């Protein structure tokens, strides 16, 4: 047998390299395969594409939507991004046999510039499997803790200390869902099944908590709010299926209602909110953008929007209504001259829009890039 294997070596070589190479190679400079160590510089837009086996965070140039790189994790990937845009987090499930066998929930900590895994932290095997929304995986204001939404379906929040890479505690959250951290300190609020909010405040070391329940804020049956939220100054914005904006304050350690604004008052066509990441706020101009759907009724709340509305929250004025194709999720950049990014849920496009400040913050599509699969989250240090 030894002889055969030796003979085989030649065969293998011929198999791999059946063509003789020219010996006079003075002028020919062969190329070599290399690895790009860092993605191209500049601001990024990230899209979280959830999969049943693997989930991918695609990283695009915020300028022209060129795909700059990606990182990938397991099933039902939830994700978030550090404020500086350099660290991405994904919480997802891995199974020994993809869809069965032994499972584990892992928090991957990714280095965005190099697209590499910096750290893995094992989570309690309770992480929610739910269409991804920003409210399911959230950093504390100082980015020392990360909060993970659990649902078995009993709901709770796993608190992970990112410095020690250890789970600090699991906070029971019965009948409530979604994580809305305060802009400072270590507290977060959550939406409860009776239309109230619960606010949890952690002790200094992250291992204890106290909680305070709000008054009833909204009517779950008749005016349910999305999980999606935005910050307008210090306040939290939510929006209902019926396009009522709930402006809330979490400054006092409990949620208080500031005001409620109907976007559709005086508008015909029975418009309602529609999509997943349905609202985004540009603070510099006090303008709220919302994906809207005509003739809305029970069951249309997750369809792709047919218009994006720009609304001046300071003045209470509907500024513009821009027609779009099936946009389910939006993100507007900060600053006085923002761009808006949207996900077309029928064609799986990531789209970029120029915002015309002189015409009511109306939108004009400038470019698009396919995002390769179902996605409901846009992130970025925009």
């Amino acid at each position, binding site marked *: 047998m030894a002889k055969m294997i030796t003979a085989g070596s030649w065969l293998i070589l011929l198999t791999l390299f059946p063509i003789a190479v020219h010996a006079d190679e003075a002028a020919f400079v062969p190329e070599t395969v290399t690895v790009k160590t860092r993605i191209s510089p500049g601001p990024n837009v990230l899209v979280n594409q959830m999969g049943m086996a693997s989930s991918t965070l695609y990283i695009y140039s915020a300028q022209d939507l060129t795909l700059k790189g990606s990182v990938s994790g397991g099933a039902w990937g939830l994700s978030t991004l550090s404020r500086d845009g350099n660290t991405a987090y994904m919480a997802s499930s891995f199974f020994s046999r993809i*869809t069965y066998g032994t499972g584990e929930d892992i928090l991957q900590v990714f280095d965005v510039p190099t697209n590499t895994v910096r750290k893995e932290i094992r989570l309690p095997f309770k992480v*929610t499997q*739910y269409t991804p929304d920003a409210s399911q995986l959230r950093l504390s204001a100082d980015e020392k803790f990360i909060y993970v939404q659990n649902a*078995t379906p009993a709901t709770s929040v796993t608190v992970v200390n990112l410095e020690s890479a250890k789970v600090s505690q699991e906070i029971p959250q019965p009948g409530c*869902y*979604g994580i809305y951290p305060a802009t400072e300190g270590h507290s977060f609020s959550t939406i409860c099944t009776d239309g109230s909010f619960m606010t949890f405040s952690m002790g200094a070391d992250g291992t204890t908590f106290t909680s305070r329940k709000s008054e009833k804020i909204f009517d*779950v049956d008749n005016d349910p709010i999305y999980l999606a939220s935005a910050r307008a100054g210090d306040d939290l914005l939510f929006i209902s299926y019926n396009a009522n904006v709930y402006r809330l304050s979490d400054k006092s350690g409990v949620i208080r209602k500031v005001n409620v604004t109907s976007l559709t008052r005086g508008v015909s066509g029975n418009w309602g909110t529609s999509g997943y990441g349905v609202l985004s706020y540009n603070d510099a101009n006090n303008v709220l953008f919302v994906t809207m759907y005509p003739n809305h009724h029970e*069951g249309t709340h997750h369809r792709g929007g047919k218009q994006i509305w720009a609304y001046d929250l300071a003045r209470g004025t509907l500024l513009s209504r821009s027609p779009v194709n099936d946009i389910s999720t939006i993100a507007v950049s900060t600053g006085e001259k923002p761009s808006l990014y949207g996900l077309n849920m029928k064609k799986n496009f990531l789209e970029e829009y120029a915002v015309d400040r002189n015409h009511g913050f109306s939108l004009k599509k400038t470019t698009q890039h396919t995002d390769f699969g179902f996605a409901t989250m846009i992130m970025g240090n925009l």
Partner: protein
Amino acid sequence: MAKRIDNLVEWVDGVAEASMRHLAGMSGRRSLLHKAGKIFIGGAVLPMLPYDNSNGVSHAEERHAEGTIPDDCQYWRYCSLHGGLCSKCGGSVTQCPPGTTPSKVAWVGTCRNPKDNKDYLVSYNDCCGKAGSCGDECTRQERDRPGYRMGLASESSWCIANGKQGVHCTVAIVVGLAE
């Protein structure tokens, strides 16, 4: 309705650790309703929907011709469905396909049967443990609510109570009359 409420009750008691097998011989429908009744008395908030409460004869009739339940997404019992029907995966409208496990808990829709104009509770159980899809999904999602009303949340996987195994398809089980 037995299994459905069984699951709910056990789940509340045991916080989602219930085993289907453990449940099977545990209690009849009546005792379950009794339990459910107590729960409602104890509940602080009762978000009931104002539906007719006459009984569901016409539905019971339909059930006898189960093999013929349509799998057109527009069929009444799919009013809050969000997923691929198991009838397209080798199962049926009420049967998980071979080799899968029905989710121990489920989201619930309230759908009106146009035959008797009554509203029924429909339990949408995911069937778990296999990869691969089997056809177009139905996305109706009427009265769907986000995770803060988990029992109506069609955006959640319901295999989460089954070791989070892969969602293969979804069945639609008429479990009760809505009051």
